[in-house]
């Protein structure tokens, strides 16, 4: 039996598989397909202060191994969320991670106050990939100062025992810099990554396929980008817990994120095509760890950051001849210093 428990900033979860914000509503619909209390946690769709209609349709376009969405954060507002969605999750006995979104620092602060001390809130995820109405619609997550302003406001209005995770956008030049700014501002952990900004043009109408023109790209198409981001953030901030997400479809996909440095993962877009996927992925991840002789999930977190294992079984290199990490696999007869490996 593999120990699947995971700790995110001092809070323990039974296992590392969560839903993803915006891909599971507030858990009720998926509970028809599997027992959602068996998941590590349910990350709810980003909630805002007021009810919100979202954008016009079409809101979605399927893309190769992915999809583009422009929903516009449709939701009932925090009051209805507390009375209905969160109350339901509490009664059901699920672990709730509440995602919040706003258009100003004050919005986020207010949302944090509304959630403060609520017994059903295990953790708060701060969706900072929202346009800042006080800064010409500039997205918070794309600017270190704007991100830290939001995180600080949420931290100040959240109980000490409730971790807050800032959800990072991959659409930045240096994700580690934004990550560091969020942590410095009081984020206990980081959710990595949000969707990538994308666009599809309908060649029949010769117009953008989405009413919102651009949309967020998600699904397996973005997985390598997400794994790279988790790896970079973990390398920069090895002690900060990461909730990893971006195109996870199988247990081995989840394992990639864990090896890159995630202590838990969210399963998002895959749920649209396979509502039973989160539990399947949990089983597959547990099996994958067992097959690799890893007794505890926590032992696998960040393992990909180890230096490469030397492969010199027949004639071991004498001590001192070690060419150092990253070079031990290079062949001595290569005429080039920086030989680029071809992938099969």
């Amino acid at each position, binding site marked *: 039996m593999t120990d699947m428990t995971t700790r995110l900033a001092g809070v323990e979860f039974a296992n590392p598989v969560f839903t993803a914000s915006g891909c599971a509503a507030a858990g009720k*619909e*998926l509970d028809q397909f599997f027992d959602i209390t068996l998941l590590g946690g349910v990350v709810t769709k980003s909630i805002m202060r007021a*009810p919100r*209609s979202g954008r016009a349709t079409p809101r979605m376009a399927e893309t*190769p191994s992915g999809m583009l*969405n422009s929903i516009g954060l449709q939701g009932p507002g925090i009051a209805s969320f507390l009375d209905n969605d969160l109350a339901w999750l509490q009664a059901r006995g699920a672990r709730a991670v509440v995602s919040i979104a706003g*258009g100003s620092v004050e919005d986020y602060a207010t949302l944090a106050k509304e959630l403060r001390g609520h017994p059903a809130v295990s953790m708060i995820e701060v969706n900072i990939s929202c346009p800042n109405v006080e800064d010409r619609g500039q997205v918070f997550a794309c600017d270190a100062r704007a991100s830290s302003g939001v995180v600080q406001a949420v931290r100040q209005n959240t109980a000490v025992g409730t971790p807050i995770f800032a959800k990072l956008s991959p659409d930045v030049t240096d994700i580690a810099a934004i990550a560091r700014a969020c942590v410095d501002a009081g984020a206990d952990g980081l959710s990595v990554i949000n969707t990538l900004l994308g666009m599809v043009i309908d060649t029949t109408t010769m117009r953008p396929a989405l*009413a919102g023109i651009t949309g967020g790209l998600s699904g397996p198409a973005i997985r390598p980008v997400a794994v790279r981001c988790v790896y970079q953030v973990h390398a920069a901030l090895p002690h900060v817990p990461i909730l990893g997400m971006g195109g996870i479809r199988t247990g081995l996909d989840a394992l990639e994120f864990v090896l890159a440095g995630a202590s838990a993962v969210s399963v998002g877009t895959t*749920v649209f095509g*396979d509502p039973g996927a989160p539990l399947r992925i949990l089983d597959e991840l547990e099996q994958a760890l067992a097959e690799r002789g890893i007794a505890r999930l926590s032992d696998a977190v960040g393992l990909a950051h180890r230096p490469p294992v030397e492969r010199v079984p027949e004639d071991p290199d004498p001590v001192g001849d070690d060419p150092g990490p990253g070079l031990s696999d290079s062949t001595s007869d290569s005429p080039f210093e920086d030989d680029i490996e071809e992938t099969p």
Partner: protein
Amino acid sequence: MPLQVAGEILAIKKVGAYQAVTVIAPGIPELTRPGHFLAVQVGGPESSMLLRRAFAIYDVKERGVYGGTVEFVFAVHGKGTAWLASRRPQDKLDVVGPLGKPFRLPKSAVNVTLVGGGYGSAPLLPLARALRERGCRVDVVLGAGSADRLFGFLDAKRMADSIAVTTDDGSTGTRGRVSDVLPGVLDKSRADVVYACGPMAMLRAVADLAAERGIPSQVAVEESMACGIGVCMTCVLPVVGDDGLTRMVRSCVEGPVFLGDRVRWDDVGSVPADAVGAPTTGGRP
């Protein structure tokens, strides 16, 4: 409560311009009512097409030689439906269903008119059967672009008290749209209720014609969906609630069947300014 079933194709056949697929999907038939739909995985487990395709359920059999089966009809529109059309008996097909809110049946034996556009008639045929069992008078109007795009004519003819057919090209029936013949059918049959399924423009015309006569209508809408189970918020349209307020509601869980006079037809595709949570002028994006 819907089920996710790793089903197996029992039969696939061409019906005019369409394909009809029968899937062995134990558990789903017992739960299905006319108007429910299925969400079907396309391209297999490693598919690059992540999203399910939604199809109205045509026929179900609770007990067959191989277990319960469910049948749906589709037209090839893109890669997903082309893959589906290339399936053969014994191929696996993962289906989720039954989904959505079905048609509500009248309590008493009233006069009912059913209007189907293209293969939108598929869910109306089991509905016709259920209505006949309740002793309703059933009149059917079927419309399509051309004769090969009509679906269910023989089924309908067997069950209905009258049947009217229109085609855009006049290849069979009356040349024109269902809305051209519907007023005559409604008046002649003294219809008490109208049910419709088909393209949005047709549904709107049917809902308007029914409303003009003070006849309640139920329409099954076709909106583009990503999940079919209520979590993605893709398939929304503006609908007036019992409280008189317009909300952007999910056609997959609050629909696909709506009262025709509750859909804000002029505003489908947009967010009306008076909808709950609509962006205010100069407000948040």
